[in-house]
């Protein structure tokens, strides 16, 4: 059963990983960090990534179709993950579904030269599940 640190260290073993964090997107709090962050500042990065995650989670445009009807209790974010790319790195944000009320995501920062976005996306999704379910 991994804790936050084990989960982040596992994420860091992905090819090209530069840094990883668990962030709360309502408050912008970094619950745990490992490796590097853009500008060397994990806390600022967490607050900025939280803003992006919040917009994605809150805006209807990014929600799946079935959300229009009933049956969605609003507890889970409608978005699974977010990908941001720039000239040299990728940012991958993966929302974590929990059985208690929360607004948490995993943030992985990886280089474009070594990173494999498809692999990272799959693995980060698995880690998000294991983090909460054990």
């Amino acid at each position, binding site marked *: 059963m991994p804790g*936050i640190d084990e989960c982040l260290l596992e994420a860091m073993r992905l090819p090209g990983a530069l840094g990883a964090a668990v962030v709360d997107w309502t408050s912008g709090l970094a619950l745990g960090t490992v490796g590097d962050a853009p500008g060397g500042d994990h806390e600022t990065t967490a607050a900025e990534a939280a803003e992006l995650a919040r917009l994605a989670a809150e805006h209807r445009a990014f929600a799946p179709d079935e959300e229009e009807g009933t049956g969605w209790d609003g507890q889970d974010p409608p978005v699974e993950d977010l990908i941001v790319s720039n000239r040299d790195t990728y940012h991958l944000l993966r929302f974590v579904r929990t059985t208690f009320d929360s607004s948490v995501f995993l943030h992985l920062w990886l280089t474009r030269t070594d990173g494999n976005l498809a692999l990272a996306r799959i693995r980060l999704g698995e880690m998000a599940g294991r983090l909460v379910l054990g």
Partner: protein
Amino acid sequence: MTAIGTPPPPLPVRRKPNGGAQAPADLTSPADLTSPADLTSPTDLTSSAGRPEPAAPVGAVTPAPSPAVPPGLSPMLNRLAAERATGVLLREHGRLYLVDGRIMHAESPETPGLDVLLTMGGLLDTEFWREAVAQAGARRRVGRFLVDSGRVSEGALELCHVGALFDAAYFVLGPSSAPARFRYGAVHWLGPVRPVPVAALERETLRRRALLHRIWPDPATDSAPLVRADAPAEPPVPARQGAVLGQVNGARTAADISRALGRPAFHTLVDLRRLAAAGLVRTAPAAAPPQTSPRRPSIAHGPDGLDGPDGPDASVSALLTEPSADPDVSLLRRLRDALEAL
């Protein structure tokens, strides 16, 4: 935990810590609290001597409160961190538990405790929580017990607990008008989960204040009973804010709403400030007496049930307090409120 609405678990924390060299007795004398080297710092001493904990710089000879220093954060806490103290810091709005100068646990009546957060979502039932506290509380290993039981994963407990710790600490480190005390040796029954350095906690608390201020500068929605404002055309509200809005009933405060939703209270404050900024929530018109001015002209078309502040120019005031279907007027009204709150 004691002040929380759900049936409180037993509180083994009140038991004396296993006999050590450090006396668990409450500190009433400053000399108990500080090593002799610290006695040169008069501002620190006042915190334990029955005066409100000042926001004055540590080590200042004259205790002149300086507004430049971040208000409300605790010089006492910094010193306890430096001396790697173990015990509990009791402040007006809750407690911080330290082990070796790091924060292990925080609780505040303003925000739901870990028990509420874990049971509301259905992860645990109250029965099991009680059993865990009963079985492992005396050993101060409740957290470990929950994980070992297989009912809660380590990751889930850490996520929930660290979130709750920063959440409660935000309120504990809020402005206070009562003396703070530190009880050496007291250890929380939850046991270690994921300790947080004091410096990180203080940085985060200041960042959170700035965040709230940036969203909407008026802190009124943080503590007062709330009502839904009559918005002419209610814009779509994101799901988590919608859950908060659904709890607004004219009587509940942010703390009540957090308990009802099983949600950390700082999250509720954020959502309420956003809702207030959108003009969807405001504080309930309390039984506050209207500020009646002697020069008040009789206005026949005064709004029913609204105690608007009647200033010298009552016609403008009446226009601004009247519930209006015109979005421009409600915007102006909110703008005015925001400017007044600055």
